[in-house]
């Protein structure tokens, strides 16, 4: 019984970070109506940024979070103006394939530079012990930071003019355009935010587990599962979806060999896509 509770708690902690990763994806999807398949590359970029900053500059791991958020944002905005902008009007098939190919190139280059070996960022934090189970400090802090970032995002989207503009564009781009909102600037902002969130999630994951260049694709897939659960364009739904996924993983792991949880995850994914195309937790689009 205790073991089940411990696993559920740990699942929720890790799941919240999945939610953070998915928030970036779902934001871009909702605002620009496109699936961003470079999401995985952004996550890995965050992981490597942590690794490089802590090893080369010897900075304490969590101190680089604001740097990564900022860096991710700038890179995202830059990427938007360089590449994404001209793809906006294209049929979704082409957009899917072009972001997919950019992802291939980035991951391919990263593989050529860093190989496919495992990288580890040693972070030692005292954990919290309950009964005989220990919750690693890294998991706890990652979940806490996720909550902070999510809170900041909420404040931005609902209590600033720019945030409201983002929601307006997500809701109806033509109407927003007509009411004088500079939509292309908003789109670039949203893309930047999406990349920043993905990179931040990558950084937090790297504080918890070792990673390889190819880890991005695995977490990108999890982000899609979470987005399917939470509904498109719904950051709050993404967070809830992430927690839900973590919960399922933790709970399921107690009753079957841990390796079966992946099967459950994908079955869930396909089922959710078929049965709930708007997401299980699809609150009304706000």
């Amino acid at each position, binding site marked *: 019984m205790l073991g089940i509770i411990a696993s559920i708690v740990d699942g929720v902690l890790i799941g919240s970070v999945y939610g953070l990763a998915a928030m970036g994806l779902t934001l871009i999807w909702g605002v620009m109506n496109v699936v961003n398949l470079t999401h995985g590359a952004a996550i890995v970029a965050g992981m490597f940024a942590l690794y490089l900053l802590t090893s080369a500059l010897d900075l304490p791991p969590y101190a680089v979070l604001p740097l990564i958020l900022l860096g991710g944002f700038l890179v995202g905005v830059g990427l938007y103006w360089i590449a994404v902008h001209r793809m906006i009007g294209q049929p979704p098939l082409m957009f899917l*394939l072009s972001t997919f190919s950019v*992802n*291939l190139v980035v991951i391919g280059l990263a593989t050529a530079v860093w190989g496919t070996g495992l990288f580890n960022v040693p972070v030692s934090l005292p954990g919290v012990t309950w009964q005989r189970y220990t919750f690693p400090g890294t998991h706890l802090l990652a979940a806490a930071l996720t909550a902070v970032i999510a809170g900041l995002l909420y404040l931005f989207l609902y209590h600033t003019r720019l945030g409201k503009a983002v929601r307006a564009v997500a809701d109806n781009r033509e109407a927003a355009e007509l009411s004088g909102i500079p939509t292309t600037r908003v789109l670039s902002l949203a893309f930047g935010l999406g990349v920043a969130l993905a990179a931040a999630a990558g950084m937090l994951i790297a504080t918890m587990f070792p990673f390889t260049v190819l880890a991005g694709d695995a977490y990108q897939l999890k982000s899609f599962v979470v987005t399917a659960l939470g509904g498109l364009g719904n950051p709050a739904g993404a967070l809830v979806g992430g927690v839900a996924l973590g919960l399922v993983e933790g709970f399921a792991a107690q009753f079957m060999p841990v390796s079966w949880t992946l099967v459950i995850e994908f079955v869930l*994914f396909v089922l959710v896509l078929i049965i709930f195309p708007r997401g299980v937790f699809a609150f009304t689009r706000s």
Partner: protein
Amino acid sequence: MKSEKTGAIDRDRASPMLYRPFFWIIALAVAAFAVVPLIGDNVQLRESLLLAAVYITLASNLNIMLGYAGYINFGSIVFFGLGGYISVYLVSAHAWPLAAAELAAGVAVSLLALVFGLGILRLRGAFFALATIGINQGVQAFVSNFEPWGGSAGLYLSTQIFEPLGGAMRSLWVIYFLLVAVMGLSLYLSYAIKTSKFGLGLIAIGQNEDAAVVLGVPAPLYKALAYSLSAFLPALAGGLYFFKSAFIQPSDAFDLSLSTEAMVIVMLGGRGTVTGAAVGAYLYEELRGWLLTSETFSNFQLVVSGVLLLIIVLFVPGGLMGWIYGRWPRMKQVLE
């Protein structure tokens, strides 16, 4: 996208396939594959042509969904992998003869594709694409846990399995010829669909699904049929390929990067064209073979695939054949 499709609609559908030059072009290509490596017992050539045949098979069948119906199947490799597993399992655990195991694999995978298809084909665009990834990863995760199929470690075939075919060396040739036959069938299937009413319906779905439905195309049925058909020959190819390897494991059988390469090939050659898939596959395989052993570039295949795809999507969406048809429109009457 438009050029090759309107080309098909303009075509005179009256003359039967046997009289069309393209039918014989395919036959010539298949014959070349079969005969050339035999000259001088050129094993090295046979090995690289075998891979080319596999790629051509995967690309031609992917073309049915991606090229005609416009549905991106990121996870098309699942058919190849499942075909491989069913075939290898029947031969190793139940001592079935190869031919029977192959047929069983092909039929089983097509049926499974039909079932999956009925579920996910109501999804559009990105959702469908993601669902196909979900299916591939889900099947891989399942097979990795499935002990009768060896789990993550996979299945091995003893060297004795080559005896009924006349020993190891001879078997390699036999399997090669069978794969060339599967490749030929894939090209013919792709061609036959394209020049049929069924194909016309698929292409209409690819251009505008809602309009097609309004015009009376039975979209759900056609999509399900296309998905199921596009699974059969890759399953056979998988069965042959993994039989030859005498070994199959989930990470090789369900390798998403192979689906990706098939997709790059279809786009490279020209989406919706039969020749494109074949020529693109051959060119890509040559490139890949070179990358495989090049010291500096052995890790670059992902980058190369990505760059190729990006260039095609951004600048040459019609691919190689699209470019050729643009320069020499009369080629459309000969090639597909």
